[in-house]
């Protein structure tokens, strides 16, 4: 495997002073001027319906030069609004651009997530980056290539159809040639994409579909500065914030003067109940923050439902909306002869980024706020911060700078807001703010706790006649969508901004009810969403949103039904699965698992589960082999298998990395993780009180991908979360006969359920909390 040849074009030290003008100057950018201009104005001034729908994010950012620039220095600048979160998107879009333009990958220069420079592609989330960003890059690149060929044909006096391109050199059959960089003229002209130039035939692909080394790995592995946490600007100051004990606390009193008098302290900031300190050195900021924290007196919450009580709270919560998102009544009058029901529970889960969130903000004398941030939503977060600070939106510029892997809406945006709040107090000085581990753990927005109830009616022959699923959940999308109330510190200011009442996401992506509609074709099929907007605990988007719990429930319950009617779980699923791509991954993973041993080793078992993420993204089937220790209750995952279909593969190694990482993270959630809290505060404050999966607990993971040449790119980053949890529950059931329905499957819970299963004959309660299912044993 060769070293990466593409480069990130953002030297961190140059970022704050990087204006559009200086960028243009230094990159020698020549925008495209086209000999044959399309009548763009004409088409735009026509009726709205005449505006063509463009592929991916070209639809919302329609100018070709917003995405691609051909530079005089023989490079291509690719500008994207999506950002690198550790998922490898920048490598994948570089591959697509180089492929369609027919240039060497090493010529691509990337600019990503700078609100002043790149197309606004909204949030980098929801597994949208491949279908929306990569597709836009694909079509924009193909069209730019076509335009360049047109210019070349004119210059060389030949027909376009006779030309060939190799690494930007356009040649005629007789050997005459010109180059992309010689074809573009000086003055800036923009041109709207038509979306009409077909991308390359997949059989001609050189980069797309090939495993490509990540462009950001060499600097990361050699200790070269690339993360925002590593950013060191001249004259930079260090800041810490002081958080209250609980969510709804108010600051009653605090002694600011003592901290202010400490060595190196530049400024102590109090704004209502928001407290921060800015100092010359990090250790000085730490010391002053500690003094501030000790002197602060706060009011405290007393009414939180606790992590044990949260499921009952969700079921009884007063403020909620009920919506039936699927109500397919069975036409046949066939009588059911058996029915089954079960209740599944998922606690609050953390993103748990290894690096705590960080940002650097500089407020200039001219009133511009420039923020280096690892936010997923640079545009919306910038707007939220502008409103919080009372600045004009155009005076806040966010520049995405990589952070630790985030897996959703973690504290990146809050860090950006806090850095900006503090930077405004020290005009001209860059302020670096990074959270402590306890602050990150206790204040990040968690993946919502959920309750899912399933109910099935079966015919005499064991066919599922009616399938009902109802779920209860807090919101999963509480991002700073241009609203200050969704920034943590804004709620504590003198004039606090209120949290906007979050809405649930609708079809086709959904949010709390993501993947709640099973892909299986049942005769009767109902799905009900109970959406509870009152949030006792801060919650927002966490990898997979509701899909994790919904797929856990659906795929566990499918197994419960299969067990009830004594049918092989894979065969059972295939009876209801019509989508051939879904069937393919399920059969593939079954094949990977191999035939069942005729004599099962005691306490070992295997389980499978399947979902197509969001029912529109990557298809993913997971198979797990486990061993359960009946003495300790410890579940050991022995082997893991994934079969995936992400459409046309761009970087197969990147997809494998994402699917494997998703599986391992989901195993961690499902085996170990639960945010704990009492009536007043979050108790999970570090890695000891919130343990995650370790090297010795990670199983070997085997992955096979089914490539679909020419089919749309599908996002894969969240596809493994749901199936993994259910495959684990199903494998544990296969091993022990015990059905686990409450996440996480800690050794204590496993032992408790093993004990209950043994004592069942003596009339003890059924395994799993609050479950009346007859599926077990």
């Amino acid at each position, binding site marked *: 495997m060769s070293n990466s040849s593409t480069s990130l074009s953002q030297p961190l030290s140059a970022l704050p002073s990087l204006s559009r003008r200086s960028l243009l100057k230094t990159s020698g950018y020549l925008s495209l001027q086209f000999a044959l201009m399309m009548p763009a104005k004409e088409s735009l001034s026509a009726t709205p319906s005449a505006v063509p729908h463009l592929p991916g994010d070209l639809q919302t950012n329609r100018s070709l030069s917003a995405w691609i620039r051909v530079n005089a220095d023989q490079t291509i600048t690719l500008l994207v609004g999506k950002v690198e979160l550790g998922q490898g998107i920048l490598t994948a879009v570089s591959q697509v651009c180089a492929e369609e333009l027919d240039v060497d990958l090493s010529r691509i220069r990337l600019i990503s997530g700078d609100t002043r420079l790149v197309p606004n592609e909204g949030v980098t989330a929801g597994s949208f980056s491949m279908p929306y960003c990569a597709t836009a890059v694909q079509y924009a690149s193909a069209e730019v290539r076509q335009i360049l060929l047109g210019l070349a044909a004119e210059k060389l006096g030949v027909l376009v159809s006779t030309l060939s391109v190799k690494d930007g050199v356009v040649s005629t059959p007789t050997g005459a040639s010109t180059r992309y960089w010689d074809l573009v003229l000086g003055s800036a002209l923009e041109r709207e994409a038509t979306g009409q130039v077909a991308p390359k035939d997949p059989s001609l692909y050189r980069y797309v579909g090939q495993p490509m080394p990540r462009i950001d790995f060499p600097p990361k592995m050699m200790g070269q500065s690339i993360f925002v946490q590593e950013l060191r600007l001249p004259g930079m100051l260090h800041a810490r914030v002081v958080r209250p004990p609980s969510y709804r606390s108010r600051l009653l009193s605090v002694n600011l003067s003592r901290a202010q008098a400490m060595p190196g302290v530049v400024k102590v900031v109090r704004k209502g109940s928001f407290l921060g300190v800015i100092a010359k050195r990090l250790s000085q900021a730490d010391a002053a923050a500690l003094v501030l924290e000790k002197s602060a007196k706060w009011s405290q919450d007393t009414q939180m439902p606790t992590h044990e009580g949260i499921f009952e709270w969700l079921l009884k919560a007063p403020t909620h909306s009920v919506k039936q998102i699927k109500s397919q009544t069975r036409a046949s009058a066939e009588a059911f002869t058996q029915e089954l029901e079960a209740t599944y529970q998922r606690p609050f889960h953390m993103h748990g980024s290894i690096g705590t969130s960080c940002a650097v903000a500089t407020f200039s004398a001219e009133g511009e706020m420039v923020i280096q941030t690892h936010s997923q939503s640079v545009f919306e977060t910038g707007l939220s911060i502008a409103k919080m600070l009372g600045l004009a939106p155009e005076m806040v510029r966010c520049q995405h700078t990589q*952070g630790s892997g985030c897996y959703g809406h973690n504290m990146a945006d809050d860090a950006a807001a806090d850095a900006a709040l503090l930077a405004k107090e020290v005009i001209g000085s860059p302020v670096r703010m990074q959270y402590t581990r306890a602050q990150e753990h206790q204040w990040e927005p968690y993946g919502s706790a959920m309750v899912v109830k399933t109910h099935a009616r079966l015919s005499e022959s064991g066919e599922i006649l009616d399938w009902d699923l109802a779920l209860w959940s807090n919101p999963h999308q509480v991002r700073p969508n241009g609203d200050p109330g969704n920034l943590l510190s804004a709620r504590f200011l003198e004039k606090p901004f209120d949290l906007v009442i979050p809405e649930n996401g609708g079809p086709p992506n959904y949010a709390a009810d993501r993947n709640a509609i099973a892909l299986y074709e049942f005769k009767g099929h109902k799905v009900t969403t109970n959406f509870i907007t009152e949030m006792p605990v801060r919650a927002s988007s966490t990898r997979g949103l509701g899909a994790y719990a919904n797929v856990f429930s659906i795929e566990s319950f499918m197994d419960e039904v299969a067990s009830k009617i004594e049918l092989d779980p894979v065969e059972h699923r295939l009876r209801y699965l019509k989508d051939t791509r879904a069937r393919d991954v399920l059969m593939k993973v079954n094949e990977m698992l191999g035939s069942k041993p005729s004599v099962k080793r005691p306490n070992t078992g295997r389980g499978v589960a399947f979902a197509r993420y969001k029912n529109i993204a990557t298809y993913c089937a997971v198979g797990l082999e486990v061993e359960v220790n009946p003495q300790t209750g410890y579940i050991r995952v022995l082997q893991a298998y994934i079969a995936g279909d992400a459409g046309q593969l761009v970087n197969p190694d990147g997809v494998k990395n994402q699917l494997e990482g998703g599986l391992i993270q989901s195993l961690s959630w499902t085996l170990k993780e639960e945010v704990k809290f009492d009536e007043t505060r979050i108790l999970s404050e570090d890695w*000891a009180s919130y343990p995650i999966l370790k*090297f010795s607990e990670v199983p070997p993971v085997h992955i096979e991908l089914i490539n679909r040449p020419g089919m749309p790119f599908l996002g894969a980053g969240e596809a493994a979360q749901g199936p993994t949890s259910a495959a684990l529950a199903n494998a544990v059931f296969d091993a022990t006969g015990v059905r686990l329905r409450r996440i996480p499957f800690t050794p204590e819970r496993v032992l408790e359920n093993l004990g209950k299963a043994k004592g069942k004959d003596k009339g003890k309660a059924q395994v799993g909390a609050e479950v009346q299912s007859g599926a077990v044993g």
Partner: protein
Amino acid sequence: MLTFKLNGQAVQSKAALSETLLNVLIEDFQVHGSKFGCGRQQCGSCTVLVDGNPLRACAAPLSSVAGRSVQTLEGLTQGGKPSRLQQAFIDEQAAQCGYCTSGMILTAQALLDRSPHPSEQEVRQALDANLCRCGAHNRIVKAVLRAAKKVGA
């Protein structure tokens, strides 16, 4: 004034002896490899090698390295090129976000220095107290084994 060796060079620090080694490395010596993760010696992303042994720099006072030799991720590179272990991490694409990578590589380097041909289980054991949240564990193990294979080969 405290003297120690940083990546082979003798350096001096005027910082308070009680400051954490991590802060001093980051603020005064522009070290980028070692990263703050928890400040509680729980995650390993701040790991440095002191006289060849892994140390959690987030909780170690500067005074603890007086007269000793400190190595960070950048110190492993040779003439601007990745070391064998760093190259193995690149070859195996052994990361996702890469934030924990520095701690992984340095902890693994200490293992390889004392045990050039470890078993897979020994690698997992050596890295067990280093946390990765992206799920790159298996690739990291493969990278260490790949580098080990090349030792003396």
